[in-house]
């Protein structure tokens, strides 16, 4: 080290070192690494879709295949009742499902983190109010609340994101509150108080960096749940009818008799897609949790 280095540079080089350490620990877990690679591939495909495939195939008026034809050389996964390729529908469904999953998870994690930290940090009546508020959302069946929300609000992707985001945060809030409480009981918080640090200082310098790793791991798990919630809402017909999602494909299959006619190829591909994406997120989330939560290490 040279004396010319500024503290900022030192801090950055240290951060880089800790990032590399985290990555080494993470990539040491084979399942987590596999999950990350496959998830990356999925996201990449979803982003590049408009370049590598034709959106016209999704339009019922331009569909070229026979209705409900089983898998064949032209349509590898068969067609739906409009004659559209199920493969194309499933692959395009990735876009909206991931968009909703990420946005809703982000929304719920932000709400959950803010409420969790506030409840733990301020204590007293603030904490009591926030916790009762959290309990209220926790005991309410989140699916029914989400249905109610998306039924009242105008239909669209934004509504689905809002409905899921507003119902999925309580578990994050509980988790963050617990972690904040353990951090705030450490003597260095007392020291920061004695140095004259206010709420902002203590939350920004000590609490937030302390809870962030856990929040990050939690986020990846929440994304998986949000993908499922999105599929459920679309399947129940409260989603956006104009965007292709896995839930919508499933709803379509149910409403148009594909299932009763034994057209399994209309149901299995979107279902398996949901399982896979959620699995990837769970693998990555578990891997992160193992790295950040020392108690899970053997």
């Amino acid at each position: 080290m040279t004396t010319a280095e500024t503290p900022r540079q030192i801090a950055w080089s240290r951060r880089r070192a800790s990032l590399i350490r985290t990555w080494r620990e993470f990539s040491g877990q084979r399942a987590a690494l596999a999950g990350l690679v496959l998830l990356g591939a999925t996201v990449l495909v979803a982003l590049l879709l408009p370049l590598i495939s034709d959106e016209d195939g999704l339009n019922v008026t331009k569909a070229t295949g026979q209705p409900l034809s089983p898998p064949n050389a032209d349509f590898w996964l068969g067609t739906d009742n409009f004659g559209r390729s199920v493969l194309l529908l499933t692959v395009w469904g990735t876009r909206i499902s991931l968009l909703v999953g990420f946005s809703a998870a982000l929304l719920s994690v932000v709400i959950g983190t803010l409420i969790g930290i506030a409840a733990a940090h301020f204590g007293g009546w603030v904490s009591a109010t926030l916790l009762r508020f959290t309990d209220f959302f926790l005991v309410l069946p989140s699916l029914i609340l989400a249905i109610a929300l998306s039924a009242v609000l105008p239909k669209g992707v934004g509504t689905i994101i809002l409905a899921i985001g507003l119902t999925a945060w309580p578990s994050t809030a509980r988790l963050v509150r617990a972690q904040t409480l353990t951090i705030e009981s450490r003597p260095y918080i007392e020291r920061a108080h004695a140095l004259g640090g206010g709420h902002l200082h203590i939350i920004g310098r000590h609490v937030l960096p302390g809870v962030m790793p856990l929040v990050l791991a939690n986020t990846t798990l929440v994304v998986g749940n949000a993908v499922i919630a999105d599929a459920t809402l679309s399947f129940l017909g409260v989603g956006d009818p104009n965007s292709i999602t896995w839930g919508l494909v499933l709803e379509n299959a149910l409403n148009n008799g594909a299932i009763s006619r034994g057209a399994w190829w209309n149901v299995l591909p979107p279902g398996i897609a949901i399982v896979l994406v959620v699995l990837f997120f769970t693998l990555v989330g578990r891997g992160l949790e193992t790295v950040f939560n020392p108690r899970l290490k053997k």
Partner: protein
Amino acid sequence: MTTPLLQLTDLNVTYEVGDKEVLAVRGVDLTLDPGGTLGVAGESGSGKSTVAMSVLRLLPRTAKITGEILLDGEDVTAMKWGRLRAVRWAEASVVFQGAMHALNPVRKIGEQIAEPLRLHPPSGKALTDDQVDARVAELLTQVDLPPSRAGAYPHELSGGQKQRVMIAMALACSPRLIIADEPTTALDVIVQAQVLALLSKLVAEQHIGLVMISHDLSVLAATCERIAVMYDGQIVEEGPSAEVMGSPQHDHTRALAAAFPTVGDPVSRFAPATAGPLPPEPSGREAGEPLLAAENLRVSFRDRTGKRINAVAGVDLTVSRDEIVALVGQSGSGKTTLARTLLGLQKPDSGVVRYAGNPVPTGGAGLKAYRRQVQLVLQDPTSALNPAHTVYEAVAEGPRIHKLADERAVVHRALEAAELRPAEKFADRLPHQLSGGQRQRVVIAGALALEPSVVVADEPVASLDASVRGEILALLLRLRREFGLAALVITHDLGLAWNIADRVAVMYRGELVETGTVEQVLLDPRHEYTKSLLAALPGGTAQHRAVET
């Protein structure tokens, strides 16, 4: 000649850490005759606990033992598993460190004392429940606990009582050897004296051999006939207690002996054990104006049952410029609550805290400005520093909060003042890369960065090794002599007060029972409680020694 009870010959213990091998114990030879008492002294990491645990092969699997461990003439290292199991507790037992954690919190203490009895029945055949109960009652009586306490859970007992339960467990199978690993650490002076007296009495009565481990030479000298001093895995000195204490040969023994001064010994007055020279007392020193003052301060808490507990019950205390005041008391006496109230971290029920004559504001910009004048140093530097922050960030925290100009220079000055030189070398280290003493210096530097006029230090050396202790105390004394920095040092240790303080305030059950200069209070105590504190010192005071000899 009788067979020695315990004989260690050329004992080596290596730990495998990762793919490296760490030599924890190197060529240790020790002998203990039946009924003899041996103290093993050393700092953390000196290998003293490893030696003790190797006697019963209680070390982790990664440890490799070479050499000979003869227990009653039988080689422990060659014992089969079954034989070893029989030897544990029936022949030799252990009083573990930290009684709070060594007892199972969900089982009654009677059951826990009975456990070794059931596992190792003395006569070889299982005891009936009545016999077990009778033996447990007998053991509890031996350690001065009423037998009715057998039904109590650990949390219902005080620290000293728990330690006595541990001793009862160790005695359960009438072993020939007891190994006590820091049996009195974390206990108050008075309780410590009681536990030590009890242990000595039982060992003498029942002709049991005792190996006692401690970092505190005076504790060992009070209980053991011989003392062995360990340093870096080796025994550097061994001899009769009085000799080791009185005329230590090895440098390390000398440092250990000096770290715990004898109260009343003029040599150690204003002379903590330090390698560097102390600046001379500034001439013309006179009583400065009062800086920090508490007036009839009262703080109370509600316990779980809703009962009010007066933690601080009407305290008047002043700390003046250029003086160090020691606040002495045992745990639970309210001294930490008093300190937190002085710092404005705890609201008093009544009474005022004054700084330079004006009441301290309870919030807002006024309180923030007050924080620049009065700073805090916590007990355990390891937990007082955010593990993710570098030394620089930790010290710069205060200046950043108060938006001081030229942060770099301020931090460097503070690090240099806390004797972390050169400052650049330490700036980018993380707390876990520092030793305990260096961490405490970082905490002190963090306080100094705000250029306060008073530092409140809550047990600043209680969690530090003996050799570092003197250095940190010397730092406080140097800061006072060079910059006139006043300090309120909270401690349970009268030796510390004798080392550096100008005045002493003795706190007992929330009240100050005695206040005065160090010489007045420690050499001529008025209050009964101060007298009992002084009487409980394991090394005694210089006056007592003079009377005895």
